[in-house]
């Protein structure tokens, strides 16, 4: 089955929290170069809380599960990145209101709302060396895949490929926001830590759907 449903969505969140637990130290190391080293910790904490909150729900809709995850991340991970991820899930949940399942079309809507919510809340634009630099190609790729009628597995893997490419390209950018902005030119050559989080998310989602 090439769809995410309300039944298997809690398993996707389990995957998210497993992956962020695995990547915790790598993210801490990346963030310590120009940030305050708390990214790995807050993501691991945030997604663990999201998983717990979603699995505690009973027979909840796709929208409710995604929104609950967002609220749980906001509470458990009160850093800037935690709040931005929370915003992404909350806005994404609103975009798939009343959807029984998430296919390519619905997930395109989800990622567009996710990207727009993060950009708006963080007041950032593409090119500012933030997570939006990866969320943007994910959203745009998903729209194109939806238009061409691609199956979800294929669409997510292509979105993951574009996200990886965009992540690599963040090395050439100069940070404009957050603590990294104080380092400005020194951030050139360093992969953006926030963008890495978005790549982890889309990869985990693509891998999860492949195994369905």
């Amino acid at each position, binding site marked *: 089955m090439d769809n995410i449903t309300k039944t298997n969505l809690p398993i996707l969140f389990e995957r998210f929290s497993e992956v962020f637990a695995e990547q915790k130290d790598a993210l801490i190391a990346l963030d310590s170069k120009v940030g305050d080293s708390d990214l790995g910790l807050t993501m691991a904490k945030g997604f663990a809380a999201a998983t717990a909150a979603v699995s505690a729900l009973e027979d909840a809709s796709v929208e409710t599960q995604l929104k609950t995850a967002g*609220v749980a991340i*906001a*509470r458990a991970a*009160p850093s*800037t990145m935690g*709040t*931005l991820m*929370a*915003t992404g899930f*909350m806005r994404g949940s609103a975009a798939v209101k009343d959807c029984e399942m998430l296919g390519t079309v619905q997930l395109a809507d989800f990622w567009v709302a996710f990207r727009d919510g993060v950009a708006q*809340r*963080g*007041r950032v634009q593409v090119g500012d060396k933030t997570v939006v630099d990866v969320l943007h190609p994910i959203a745009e790729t998903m729209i194109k895949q939806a238009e061409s009628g691609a199956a979800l597995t294929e669409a997510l893997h292509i979105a993951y490929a574009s996200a990886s490419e965009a992540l690599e390209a963040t090395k050439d950018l100069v940070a404009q*926001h*957050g603590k990294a902005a104080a380092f400005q030119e020194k951030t050139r050559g360093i992969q953006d830590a926030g963008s890495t989080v978005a790549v982890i998310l889309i990869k985990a989602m693509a891998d999860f759907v492949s195994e369905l």
Partner: protein
Amino acid sequence: MKKFLNNPENFVDEMLEGIYLAHPEVTNVANDLRCFVRTEPVKGKVGLVTGGGSGHLPLFLGYVGDNMLDGAGVGGVFQSPSSEQILEVTKYVDQGAGVLYLYGNYSGDLINFDMAGELADFDGIKTATVVGCDDVASSVVGEEHKRRGVAGIFFLYKAAGAAAAQMKSLDEVARIAEKASVRTRTIGVALSPCIVPEIGKPSFNIGEDEMEIGMGIHGENGITRKKMAAADDVVDEMMALILAEQSYETESDVAVLINGLGATPLEELYVIYRRTAQVLKQAGANIRHVFIGEFATSMEMAGASISVLKLDDELEPLIAAGANTPFFKHIKF
């Protein structure tokens, strides 16, 4: 570093414990010392909530009290409070008339207050937001929305707080706060750096004989760094930046705030005020209200800021209104 500290990690919470012990009219909610509220909220009144990093007392929590604010989210030193803490304060402060978020224009605070507002909306609480962006040194004319919020936010608290106490609606209180924001200008000067307790060393270096005009209250870069000069010359240079943006044609009523950044004696603030008053009068301003002291500090930074609010008939009585908070008492005259 020579500071009165126990474990630096406990600095903020121990400060809060001291404040709660000294001032029973304020307390905390949600079993979190950093969710700071008035002990007795006023039924039916618009709630005013502020917040931001610690290290700026009396800002932010110091203005929670009668005729001013109702609650504050308290962050670590120079760090934003979390959206969850702001939400908890919001829930307590809401007395049915909605809540106005009033805080300084910093990215961490913007993100967390916006998030708290979205979460409050799920709980059926209406919120509105006005940010202080009064620091003329932090962005050019036309890009005022990018400016940092500094000591001038005091005028926003005063005006919005008095308006809310008159039981005006959320929209009205927000409009008045926004008006005070648009009409307030601040310029600061720093003479020495500050030390964040958990870091333990100065956040920047500045020469013994140097000053930096326009430096932010967390040590953000200012406009110029130069040799220290005579007090009147420093004030003239600072006031020129404000006068370039606001005209005080004959008989413009203004309120003036001379703010110490933490290590500058009150005596020197009055030396600064003396020249500021001369410059303002020469520019045609009629000084109606004067506030001098520490209103928004930066730990032990030496330096000062000058804020000017251009009054109108609506704002003047709100600035004149009485207020009673742990850190600010004002008798209406």
